[in-house]
């Protein structure tokens, strides 16, 4: 098609330079480059970084943030935000733990855990989509409500005494893969299909691109937004199952600041905070980038206080590069 000719026109560029330029238009290009660069640095900085056990370790550590970031990607793609996910995850986890400790069927308890997450998400969605309230305010409020409910329910103490099999979700293995990693991969595949291969996914991008135009063209925008926030709660609920399996207890104070880590992963992954542009592949790369940074800086022995500063600087840098790129595009 003639569009590819116009790309080739501006000069006798080397084929590699050309394909690089083409690759640069792919939203996840910069996060991928970032991940590779940081990984190479870590390989030189620490001998054991590249060991199989360390890689598995990183993936497992990343899994919870990556799961939460799935729903967050959908929400941010519409130009919204969900601050409640960390608290919702904690509430769902403590509730499941409490029910199991009280003798309820474990499977049922875990299903309730996921449902509580989804329910909170739908409530967020209802306020945002049908009451027209700003997402940052709605989810700030439900964050407080979820956190408070978890503390009330547990009295502030962890709940333990869960059936041993629940630990599978945190540390079990299938075909050599750890269960959290497996769950993460499964959720990403399903979510990617939903986002890239269904009408609903297209609406997510369209709402972020121009909500008014999307609504006027006859798309049920409010219903889509309801489901998008529901999805964010749902992935927080799934993250709660993994977390509960790993901790083998319900911790009402778990997940503090997880919403910010998820937002960081999404933004590092190249998704525009204004919505409309971005990808799930970018998000998983963003989550991995954060994970590699955490892990690497720990291994090198960087003071944890310094680590948060480094992460903050990297996020600023990533957004700055993203903005520059959009201007030239």
């Amino acid at each position, binding site marked *: *098609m*003639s*569009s590819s000719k*116009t790309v080739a026109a501006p000069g006798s560029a080397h084929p590699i330079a050309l394909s690089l330029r083409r690759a640069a238009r792919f939203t996840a290009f910069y996060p991928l480059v970032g991940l590779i660069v940081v990984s190479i640095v870590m390989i030189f900085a620490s001998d054991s970084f590249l060991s199989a056990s360390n890689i598995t370790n990183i993936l497992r550590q990343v899994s919870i943030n990556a799961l939460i970031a799935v729903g967050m990607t959908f929400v941010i793609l519409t130009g919204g935000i969900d601050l409640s996910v960390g608290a919702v995850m904690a509430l769902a986890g403590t509730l499941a733990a409490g029910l199991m400790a009280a003798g309820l069927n474990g499977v049922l308890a875990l299903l309730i855990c996921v449902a509580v997450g989804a329910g909170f998400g739908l409530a967020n969605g209802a306020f945002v989509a049908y009451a027209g309230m700003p997402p940052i305010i709605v989810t700030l409020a439900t964050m407080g409500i979820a956190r408070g409910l978890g503390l009330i329910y547990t009295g502030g103490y962890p709940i333990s005494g869960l059936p041993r099999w629940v630990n599978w979700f945190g540390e079990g293995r299938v075909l050599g893969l750890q269960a959290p990693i497996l769950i993460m991969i499964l959720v990403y595949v399903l979510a990617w*299909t939903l986002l890239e*291969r*269904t*009408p609903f996914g*297209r*609406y997510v*991008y*369209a709402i972020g*691109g*121009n909500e*008014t*135009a*999307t*609504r*006027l*063209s*006859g*798309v*049920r925008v*409010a219903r889509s937004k309801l489901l998008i926030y529901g999805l964010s709660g749902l992935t927080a609920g799934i993250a709660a199952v993994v977390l509960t399996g790993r901790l083998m207890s319900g911790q009402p104070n778990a997940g503090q600041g997880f919403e910010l880590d998820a937002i960081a992963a999404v933004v590092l992954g190249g998704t525009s905070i204004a919505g*409309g*542009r971005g990808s799930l592949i970018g998000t998983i790369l963003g989550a991995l980038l954060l994970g590699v940074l955490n892990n690497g800086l720990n291994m090198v022995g960087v003071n944890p206080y310094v680590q948060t500063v480094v992460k903050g600087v990297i996020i600023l840098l990533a957004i700055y590069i993203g903005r520059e790129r959009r201007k030239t595009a």
Partner: protein
Amino acid sequence: MSAILELRGITKGFPGVQALSGIDLTVGAGEIHALLGENGAGKSTLMKILSGIHQPDEGRIVVDGQDRHFADYHDAVAAGIGIVFQEFSLIPYLNAVENIFLGRERRRFGLLKSRSMRAEAVALFERLGVHIDLSAEVRALSVAQQQFIEIAKALALDARILILDEPTATLTPTDAEHLFQIMRGLKAQGVAIIFISHHLDEIFEICDRITVLRDGQFIADTDVAETDMDSLVQMMVGRRLERSFPPKPAPRPSAKVVLEVEGLQIERGGPVNAFRLHEGEILGFAGLVGSGRTETVMAVLGADPAHRKTVRINGDAVRLADPAEALSHGLGILPESRKTEGLITSFSIRDNISINNLPKYRKAGAFLDFARERTTTDAMMRQVGVKAPGQNTVVETLSGGNQQKVVLARWLNHHCRILFFDEPTRGIDVGAKAEIYGLMRALTEQGYAIVMVSSELPEIVGMSDRVAVFREGSIVATLDSDQITPTDIMRHATAGETHELV
């Protein structure tokens, strides 16, 4: 009367458009001078040149007999020019005094001299003969009062030439009368006023002279006493009426009614409207900007809430709670602003066209069938004649005409038979306009019914089979075939001869 302001041969081009060519304008001291022309005639550009916001490519600006060059707004202000824009520049949370002295507050030792500023504001409003609550935040004041503050602000800067850009567009008739009193008072003090308005009756009431622009050209200037409404409309519209619009089909009185709107009341206590749309016709919605045409369309579609409405499609009562429901009943819209309401600008042509067609492209009940999406989009693009490198072209890069075709194509794969075109050719070049007109006629021949909102009189006259004229939120007249003349439409739209009608 000596000329306080003379513009000679003002010419200004923007990339792709010649906005003004050789405009002359002469205004005497103590004269109220109307600047008249349709939307896009060049009035705003001329006023921006006069206030230093744009610089002319050619031409002279002469104030008090001296040639002037305005490098920016401040130069114009220094030369005694004051402008009150349509969009007010007041800070809503400050009071009148603070607004008037914004940016040039009087100070002593770094502290504000509130009393001195307040005294001057009082003097200014006395000069205007209006009473303003000086301690109230301006957002709490009426639109008219805010406008008076804008005028006071200009006078505080010693303006001797005052530009009022459509000042009455947002005023009630009583407030407009109040404004006219103020204008007469300023005139008596020797202030020259350039008055922009689409309300011809106001021009006859308040103005001394008139300059008419059309398509960026100077057409005529004349004393108000020596002209009448017919010749003014003729000057504004010109021979463009003869421009080739597709021929209108013969009236078909037997055509069935496809859309019937009754008792449409947008706000409680507001005007109540009704209209009918027949198969195969184009119904023009004429009227001034802000007369309630777009609001009516949006309320019918359910895009904005209506207090009460009864809508029947092919005789069946329908609810139309939102645009999605309207679509399910076969109603579609090409919104007024393509960029902010029509297109998802970051999307490709294909994604924009298929956005409301996606459920049709599903396979296995859920997943998008990209091949089918591509072929259907291709057919849609060919049907409306989108010119672009390919389906993947981002719509941002398209011309206005092609963008409009993309929005139109979106509706053609549905069972939609009723389309609302809101300002369909705004910002589109002449050639593409003709194509859009051709498409609209082709659609009505296939049995589509179209409501067309337009602020361009030639377009309304050239395209509409029937015209509903809006004024202040009400449909005040519905005109048929040979009743559709520019003068009649203007008369109804501006209440020129209301008393005779009622």
